[in-house]
């Protein structure tokens, strides 16, 4: 098998497995990944065994290991800085009151919102409730009420934003790592 055929084969099989796993996760069928991943590994190894040309040697190993080492070093430094910044958020959050919000539809069809203010660093239980405010019929608010509502809503639903932020942060870290690795790989490939 030629190198280009090998790459095309691996790409096609990987795409197929990714689609299978994605659709299986979406439908809740967890048996598909259990079968698909080992099958993917078997196909990759079978293709590698039939490969005629050399795909990895000592120079490439050196380039890859140097690129990985530099990426690791970069991520350790960046991680240390990020840890300091994030820890300050963790400490400040435990010292500030927690605001939680809920939106519900009343029996008369109007939409109301409940805002609960809890003691700092305590679980969100009725015993730790400092204040609870209900804004009735949020569709009929005037401009002043709407501004106050927006500010409260932003605070109250901050938890959801934080969850999204974690996902974006993880994706960002993975992206930065891949870019850094790629850049270092190209640098060392040119150097050696």
């Amino acid at each position, binding site marked *: 098998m030629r190198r280009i055929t090998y790459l095309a084969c691996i790409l096609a099989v990987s795409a197929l497995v990714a689609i299978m796993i994605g659709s299986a996760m979406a439908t809740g069928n967890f048996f598909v990944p259990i079968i698909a991943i080992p099958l993917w590994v078997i196909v990759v190894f079978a293709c590698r065994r039939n490969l005629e*040309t*050399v*795909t*990895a*040697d*000592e*120079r*490439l190993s050196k380039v890859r290991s140097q690129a990985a080492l530099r990426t690791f070093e970069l991520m350790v430094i960046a991680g240390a800085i990020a840890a300091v910044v994030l820890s300050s958020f963790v400490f400040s959050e435990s010292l500030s009151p927690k605001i939680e919000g809920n939106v519900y539809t009343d029996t008369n069809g109007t939409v109301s919102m409940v805002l609960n203010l809890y003691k700092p660093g305590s679980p969100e239980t009725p015993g730790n409730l400092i204040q609870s405010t209900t804004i009735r019929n949020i569709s009929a608010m005037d401009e002043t009420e709407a501004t106050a509502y927006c500010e409260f809503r932003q605070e109250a639903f901050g938890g959801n934003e934080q969850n999204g932020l974690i996902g974006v942060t993880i994706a960002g870290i993975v992206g930065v790592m891949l870019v850094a690795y790629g850049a270092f790989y190209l640098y060392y*490939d040119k*150097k*050696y």
Partner: protein
Amino acid sequence: MKNRIRVLRAERDMTQEQLADLVGVTRNTIISTEKGKYCPSIKLGYRIARVFGVCIDDVFTYEDEIDGPSKDNE
């Protein structure tokens, strides 16, 4: 590390691709080694010398000024 790979290849009318296949590395490794950018392992050095049917000293030359301990030639 100086080397005579290009000369030895030319003498035997051998391409970089052919040499790479014979010693089991990629063509880029042969190119980098020929240019002196990459210093091959002793194993690879011996394999290259064996392909040409010469002693390793006839292929690679160690030079103190270039390959000395103060230089980073890894």
